[in-house]
């Protein structure tokens, strides 16, 4: 099962340096010829301002240079790193906006971003944080081009465009480190789509130019007077922002996005009773880090955040997770909504499967409380996971507490899922659930709702 340790390798693509996670520390080595520039940036007012606003990862110099003259830096570890393939569309847009904001601010100070990919951004709650401090370099004042323009389009805008216009999942970015080429989308667009903005700028024109001049025609830059170059560069960034703005959109309703409002198997009293139990349990145990499994639109994630916990909320439903992300963002709650499936966890990815960690490796023993409300019956029936395995997953994820809701076979939602397979699932009663949980947990509190569902506060043995 889970390795129980972070197995990520040292990063290796950036010629300026590398990064490795060592326990709770994140260590960055900066090669000698890039060290001065890195320090200059980190000591700048802009860096300080962005760090104080939580938009740039904090950095400390970890001692002097080592024997090879490399500079050693240290960052705090982001509690739960999530990857673009797990982000909601709103999180993608927020990460892209942060990247453009940062780049615009740098340009005014004679600097620029040398790369622009979602992988330079992590989330703390709903807030994007720019984490690659070696992405900043000095700008050639005569060059009006942003050399990372194409990467920004490939890795941010084209995945968003493919999602909005073609319904291609953003999760496909797992297999596309460098995003999409304009030619990947072009054949799938209608004539009208091709010539309307923002696709004309992002897909059609670049694709036709590439066809005309061949793929090897890149690798050039312009030289203009510095004042013109800066104005043109800022205009290019504004146009990217306009394209990003055009790619924002309303999410459609999904099976689960209206669940909280349409849960007819709950009366108002049941809802209140459930909320009261969960709130009371959370206040009593005072967890720092809560994982909300099957969070839906985040009613209980926000409840946990309201009592002081920082929450990571997993749900398989994109629309429900998007609502959770937006609400947390608007209300500034410490909730990080992630599209993730406990039954089919995001795999490790990248070179030797070691550049990006799998979902469970990132979550292993990271939380002092895991909530599993209205989820157990889905894992048991829809995903056909044995009850003992569900208990085992909870044990792996929490260091101490779990709040779990048991849904009995008489519940209409349970019956809906079983659909004629009563014989197979007939043995799944509350006694079997309790026996499985008691292998790893002690039941501290229990409350039965009027609709027959039961809530348990469990503590690890």
């Amino acid at each position, binding site marked *: 099962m889970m390795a129980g340790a972070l197995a990520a390798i040292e990063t290796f693509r950036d010629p300026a340096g590398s990064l490795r996670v060592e326990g709770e520390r994140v260590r960055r080595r900066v090669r000698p010829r890039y060290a001065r520039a890195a320090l200059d940036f980190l000591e700048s007012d802009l860096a300080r301002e962005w760090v104080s606003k939580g938009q740039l990862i904090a950095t400390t110099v970890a001692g002097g240079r080592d024997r090879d003259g490399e500079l050693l830096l240290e960052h705090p570890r982001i509690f739960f790193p999530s990857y673009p393939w797990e982000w909601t569309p709103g999180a993608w847009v927020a990460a892209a906006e942060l990247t453009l904001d940062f780049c615009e601010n740098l340009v005014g100070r004679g600097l620029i971003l040398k790369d*622009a990919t979602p992988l330079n951004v992590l989330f703390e709650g709903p807030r994007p944080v720019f984490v690659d401090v070696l992405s900043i370099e000095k700008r050639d004042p005569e060059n009006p081009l942003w050399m990372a323009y194409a990467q920004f*389009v490939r890795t941010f805008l084209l995945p968003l465009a493919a999602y909005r216009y073609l319904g291609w999942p953003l999760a496909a970015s797992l297999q596309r480190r460098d995003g999409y080429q304009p030619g990947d989308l072009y054949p799938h667009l209608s004539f009208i789509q091709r010539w309307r903005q923002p696709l004309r700028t992002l897909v059609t024109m670049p694709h*036709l130019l590439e066809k005309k001049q061949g793929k090897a025609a890149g690798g050039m830059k312009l030289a203009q*007077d510095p004042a*013109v170059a800066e104005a*043109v560069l800022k205009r290019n960034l504004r146009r990217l922002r306009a394209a990003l703005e055009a790619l924002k959109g309303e999410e459609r309703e999904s099976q689960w996005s209206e669940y909280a409002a349409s849960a007819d198997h709950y009366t108002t009293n049941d809802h209140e009773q459930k909320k009261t139990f969960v709130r009371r349990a959370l206040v009593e145990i005072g967890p720092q880090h809560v994982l909300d499994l099957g969070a839906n639109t985040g009613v209980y994630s926000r409840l946990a955040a309201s009592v002081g916990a920082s929450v990571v909320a997993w749900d398989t439903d994109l629309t429900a997770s998007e609502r959770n992300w937006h609400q947390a963002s608007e209300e500034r709650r410490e909730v990080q909504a992630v599209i993730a499936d406990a039954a089919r966890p995001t795999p490790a990815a990248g070179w030797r499967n070691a550049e990006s960690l799998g979902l469970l490796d990132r979550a292993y023993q990271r939380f002092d409380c895991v909530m599993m409300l209205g989820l157990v019956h889905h894992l048991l029936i829809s995903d056909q996971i044995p009850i003992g395995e569900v208990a085992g997953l909870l044990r792996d994820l929490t260091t101490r507490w779990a709040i779990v809701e048991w849904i009995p076979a008489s519940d209409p939602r349970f019956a809906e899922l079983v659909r004629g397979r009563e014989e197979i699932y007939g043995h799944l009663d509350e006694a079997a659930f309790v026996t499985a949980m008691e292998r790893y947990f002690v039941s501290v509190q229990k409350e039965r709702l009027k609709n027959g569902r039961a809530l348990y506060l469990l503590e690890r043995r």
Partner: protein
Amino acid sequence: MFKRSVLYLLGLLQVVVFLAAAVKPAHAYVDPGSGLLAFQVGGSMLAGALFVLRAKIRKLFGRGSTAKTEAEGQSETRTSGLPG
């Protein structure tokens, strides 16, 4: 006829020189693309030209601050003077 062709040619040349800036080899860390780069190059040349043109018009009508007009005037000279 010949005179008109020469005039057209000179006009075209003026536009080309006006838009053009020095093209140098780029040293990018990430793949700068080809179609996307060409699109950015084209857009940047046009935008540069418009920027200079706007400055020239402002100067003609005596608008804009002196310092800005001066900087923009220099840009024009520099951009126009670069080989195509």
